[in-house]
């Protein structure tokens, strides 16, 4: 018996070790042998080649709008575009893995500046400034650098290096239910104090009407996306003299404001409200105010989805002691340093982001997030939003005053944002005071500049 057991054990062990050997060798051979052959030696030959570039894109209306136009580019240049669309956040994971592993699998990618700046710090992106300056590679008219929304463009550069160009840009604004405000004779608030007062007046939970709805669920892209605007308008900064400053007067006041307005004049259980929940609540006519993404207007003004279509007013974010701080959330297109087809990739970016293509795609697909100034000024584009009240004016102005470093360009933003998010959600659930939460944030959160 005993010996038989021994045989079994040795068998299993030896078997697994042979497997380990084969597994290792195959994984070493795999990537190096296959892709190299087709990607080299074809540069510089213009016109009709079989060149193919791979574009990793976010599942997003801006890409839906661009996709049907891509054959035009392929006809014009002979460059084939392989479009890979992935939803957020998988699109970021996919690119991060490809970039950190040094793979050549992406020629054009897209991401938001938080990730772009991290990747840029890691030396993984191509410096587009050099390409922009290269008159042989760049068609200035098509590129129209000055026509990009200046703040969005700035957000994608650091130390005079442009590492991406904006494809879309959105901002945050104050949405209000016109009828509720008129009925109660409440003027549109312009300061955070006025907003608190107005929310208080319009809060009537027994009628199923809440004063305000804001993102309360923890997360760097959830409560912190909105909280940041309040923090900044109270004068808060993420990096003050190289260190964080959360327990400053501004940090405590902003967090207290956020907690107070949500717990007193928001829906119950505010800490579970994500953006979808906030949008649903407002579009069902159950909240008087909402601060959220400008692009939500699309759903709110769609009478099939929304009970408040035609009844929504838009305003710039109310001012705090330090002014008004709308968010700037833009995604840009970039070229990985490891791409073997940079020239073709750059041609594609110039074409895709050109004012002409952007206008065409925006008008045909009613995009509300174009990052081109000329498009916003175009009559055919403006007429799309004829029934959206003052939305177009407010949004265009907001994007132009939004700060490019709304969220700080630090290496560990997702971590900082998520940790802050947990603490702010504890305040909106009343398990921590604003004071205690910000003290904890100051002690525990480490920002890596």
């Amino acid at each position, binding site marked *: 018996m005993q010996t038989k057991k021994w045989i079994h054990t040795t068998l299993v062990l030896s078997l697994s070790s042979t*497997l380990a050997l084969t597994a290792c060798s195959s994984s070493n051979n795999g990537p190096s042998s296959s892709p190299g052959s087709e990607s080299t030696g074809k540069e510089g030959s213009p016109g009709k080649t079989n060149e193919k570039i791979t574009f990793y894109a976010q599942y997003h209306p801006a890409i839906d709008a661009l996709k049907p136009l891509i054959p035009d580019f392929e006809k014009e240049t002979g460059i084939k575009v392989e479009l890979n669309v992935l939803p957020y956040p998988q699109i970021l994971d996919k690119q991060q893995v490809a970039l950190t592993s040094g793979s050549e699998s992406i020629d054009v990618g897209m991401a938001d500046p938080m990730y772009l700046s991290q990747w840029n710090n890691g030396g993984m992106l191509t410096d587009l400034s050099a390409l922009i300056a290269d008159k042989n590679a760049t068609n200035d008219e098509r590129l129209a650098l000055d026509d990009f929304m200046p703040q969005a463009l700035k957000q994608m550069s650091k130390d005079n290096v442009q590492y991406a160009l904006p494809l879309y840009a959105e901002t945050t604004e104050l949405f209000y239910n016109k009828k509720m405000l008129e009925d109660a004779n409440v003027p549109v608030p312009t300061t955070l104090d006025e907003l608190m007062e107005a929310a208080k007046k319009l809060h009537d939970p027994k009628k199923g009407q809440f004063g305000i*709805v804001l993102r309360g669920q*923890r997360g760097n892209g959830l409560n912190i996306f909105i909280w940041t605007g309040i923090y900044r308008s109270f004068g808060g900064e993420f990096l003050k003299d190289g260190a964080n400053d959360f327990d400053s007067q501004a940090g405590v006041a902003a967090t207290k404001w956020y907690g107070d307005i949500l717990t007193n004049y928001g*829906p*119950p*259980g505010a800490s*579970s409200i994500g953006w979808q929940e906030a949008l649903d609540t407002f579009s069902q006519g159950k909240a008087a105010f909402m601060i959220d993404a400008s692009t939500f207007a699309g759903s709110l003004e769609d009478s099939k989805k929304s009970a408040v279509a035609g009844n929504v007013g838009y305003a710039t974010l109310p001012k705090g002691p330090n002014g008004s701080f709308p968010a700037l959330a833009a995604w840009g297109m970039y070229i990985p340093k490891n791409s073997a087809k940079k020239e073709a990739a750059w041609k594609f970016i110039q074409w895709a982001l050109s004012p002409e293509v952007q206008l065409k795609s925006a008008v045909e697909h009613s995009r509300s997030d174009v990052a081109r100034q000329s498009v916003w000024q175009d009559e055919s584009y403006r007429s799309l939003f004829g029934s959206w009240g003052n939305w177009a004016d407010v949004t265009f102005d907001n994007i132009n005053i939004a700060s490019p470093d709304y969220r700080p360009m630090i290496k560990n933003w997702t971590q900082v944002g*998520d940790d802050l998010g*947990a603490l702010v959600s504890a305040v909106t659930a009343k*398990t921590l005071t604003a004071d205690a939460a910000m003290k904890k944030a100051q002690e525990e959160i480490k920002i890596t500049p």
Partner: protein
Amino acid sequence: MGDHLKVRLLNPLKRLSQRNKVLFWMLVPCLAFIFILTIYPTVYLLFVSLTSYNTMEKGSMKFIGLANFGTFLTDANAWHAFWISMKHVVVTLSLELVLGTLTAIAAYKLLNKWYSRWLRTIVLLPLMVPSVVTGITWAQLFSPTNGFFSYLASKFGLYSVGFLGDASTAFSSLVAIDVWQWTPFIFLMILAGLEALPAEPYEAASIDGAGRTRTFWSITIPLLKRNFLITIILKIIFSFKVWAEIYMTTRGGPGNLTETLNVHIFNVAFVNNNFGYAGALSFVYLIILNVILLAFFKALFPKNAV
């Protein structure tokens, strides 16, 4: 691979009988799967847990010994998350055992009714719902503004129940979701046990004049002991893996009141990109799970039975 090595590796095979040889080769695919999907990842996990690997930093995979495990000992957030995990396992398991056993007994008594099949299918439905769908659906049901439960609460004059978003109700709401999804599992396991029970002990008991309650506690429960143990073992394993139901509803909030250890590990790995430390936490989690299971396995397979 050299011939020499081949001979050494395959030599023991020659000593096996023809039948065992066939059996051995039939096992190979299965062993290969176990190796690729279990043994290799576990070894790699242990390896990563000894490094400072951060996915955002090139060349960060440096060997740092047991430093990550040292960090865990003083990491209050991780211990808090571990406590929440344990609380979640114990509370959901106890509730589900009671409810699952009661429904199983009820279903067993109704065995010969025409609707018993229908009833069973309906009871088992929640088990078949993918956990992500469960999470999204319950988040909708618990929505404080548009949800079914807040509507219900408002009919009773309660306008301020926040369910998943209130500090006082968030954990219980998650327990409710787990009970909804997993009670059918207990039900299924216990019902199978009930149906396989031998008739003789019951006949003997009725001859001896034992009442219903006495029969239940002295015969049914002891006979079902192994079913209970297996059920508990499996449910603990499932409980340790609960992730989507929490991430889709509270994301661990409000604050960190519902942040279980695996949600915490997910954040450390995929938000903070700190794979080294996340590896160490996972490894600790794995060991804790195994220690707990060991106790149950000992009860399930007493020494003389092996």
